[in-house]
């Protein structure tokens, strides 16, 4: 385990040395929350529908934090490691290059959780949002959302022919997913088919289940199952198709 802990420690240092990643994780989600959340909350009349739910924006901010790490940072980092033959270099040592992937996932997970905690605390005090009412449901929804999005990120890393490609596939996938989650147009105003797709899309299901548990309801079982299934499928395909060079 010594090599793995060293790898994780080094990857953590490298992550912290990238101001852009830190900004994505710790500043952007909470910034978006304040920009969009404050005016909405200031208005006396809360609208109805998805965007009227008090927990929608906080849930979206958490999903955003994880999504950016999973779909931008992780595939990009792995693409660069493959392109620069770091994985190949590692293969000449007694350590399996797979450990570097493990270390990358661990570091992005840790940063994702840290970012989510910071965002949640920020929401709690800056927007005066109460803490998640259904804590077990909230944790479960969060973890499944993380697993699902990271599996997709790993699949991008596995399939992208280059780091540059990974860098464009991530956002090309992220913004449609954000749209499907109802970030711009609330899902209740979308055509039914699109809204149903949105319900079971990775970010949509993550946002819904987190928002529901935050409000104290039970997250929808079907959405949790879809998240879990996507996570398993994505990881299996990523493992199957990953190229080391």
């Amino acid at each position: 385990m010594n090599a793995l802990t060293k790898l994780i420690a080094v990857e953590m240092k490298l992550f912290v040395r990238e101001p852009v990643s830190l900004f994505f994780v710790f500043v952007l989600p909470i910034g978006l929350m304040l920009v969009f959340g404050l005016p909405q909350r200031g208005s006396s009349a809360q609208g109805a529908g998805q965007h009227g739910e008090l927990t929608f924006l906080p849930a979206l901010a958490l999903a955003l934090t994880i999504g950016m790490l999973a779909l931008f940072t992780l595939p990009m980092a792995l693409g660069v490691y493959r392109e620069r033959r770091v994985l190949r270099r590692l293969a000449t040592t007694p350590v399996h290059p797979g450990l570097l992937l493990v270390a990358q996932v661990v570091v992005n997970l840790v940063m994702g959780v840290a970012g989510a905690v910071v965002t949640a605390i920020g929401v709690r005090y800056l927007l005066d949002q109460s803490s998640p009412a259904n804590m077990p449901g909230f944790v479960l929804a969060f973890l499944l959302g993380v697993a699902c999005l990271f599996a997709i990120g790993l699949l991008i890393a596995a399939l992208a022919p280059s780091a540059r490609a990974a860098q464009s596939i991530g956002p090309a996938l992220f913004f449609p997913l954000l749209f499907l989650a109802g970030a711009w147009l609330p899902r209740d105003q979308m055509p039914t088919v699109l809204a149903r797709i949105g319900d079971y899309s990775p970010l949509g299901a993550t946002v819904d289940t987190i928002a529901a548990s935050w409000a104290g309801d039970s997250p929808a079982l079907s959405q949790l199952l879809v998240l879990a299934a996507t996570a398993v499928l994505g990881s299996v395909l990523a493992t199957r198709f990953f190229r080391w060079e």
Partner: protein
Amino acid sequence: MPVIEVEHLHKRYGEKVAVDDVSFTVEQGEIFGVLGPNGAGKTTTVECVQGLRRADGGSVRVLGLDPIRDRTEVRQRVGAQLQESQLPDKLRVREALDLYRSFYRQRADIDELLADLGLTEQRNTAFHKLSGGQKQRLSVALALVGCPEVAILDELTTGLDPQGRRDTWDLVERIRDRGVTVVLVTHFMEEAERLCDRLAIIDAGRIVAIDTPSGILARVGTEHRVHFRPLDELDDSLLAALPEVTGVSRGGDEVTVTGPEQVLQSVLAALAEHKVRYAGLRVEQPTLDDAFVSLTGRHAGRAAATQPPTDKRSS
């Protein structure tokens, strides 16, 4: 027992044969060169030795082990420097060494290694701020950080300036002096000539010759060339009649005489005897580059082909 034994190695990628039939042995403590033009199969050969690729035919033994079956043990004892391998931009020199060191059973002293490779001042420098030569030295340091018995260095000096190249050569000799067996993959003839105890010339997936550099030169029997400008009247047939001379030609006012090693002596004697004064005397000795051309019918690499005439070796 030889450190590395390769017998009838064969490797293809789909339809393309990368290594056709390659056999050689590397002995304890030598610098063994694997030489050949780009695409000759050098890198594939050493990748099979490292266990990075599975051979399609033949056998490879490293320190008596099978590099595929005993891969972990082989990797503990064989350090590798890969062609064009990089590190993360913001990883610092010391951190990289400390990380790679943790992968091995035997661990070199980092400060000593840094000093040996002239990287002490750069120990806290991020990878992307290193010069080409410093990156290359770090790459070598990473190959040595596990105290390997064998170091495989692939295209070590490609992209370095002449000074950087010479420094790296000194470094390779120091590695050998520590008792490490070195396998040096290169397409620079000058590098192989300067460093290798023995070398294998590979072309199109096959071994063309294995010998010491001087053995290869002798085997090819490439001729020396004597150039000079006669200041007095000189009849070319006078030189052509000398037993050692195989050819006389004139380009402008310069005369070029070819022949085996003794040709210089006989030409000078003949010039003295006939009281012919001369200027601009220089001798071109055969180089491995010439030997390579004569063995394979083509040049090893652009860089080797653009070397200036090697008259400095005549003195």
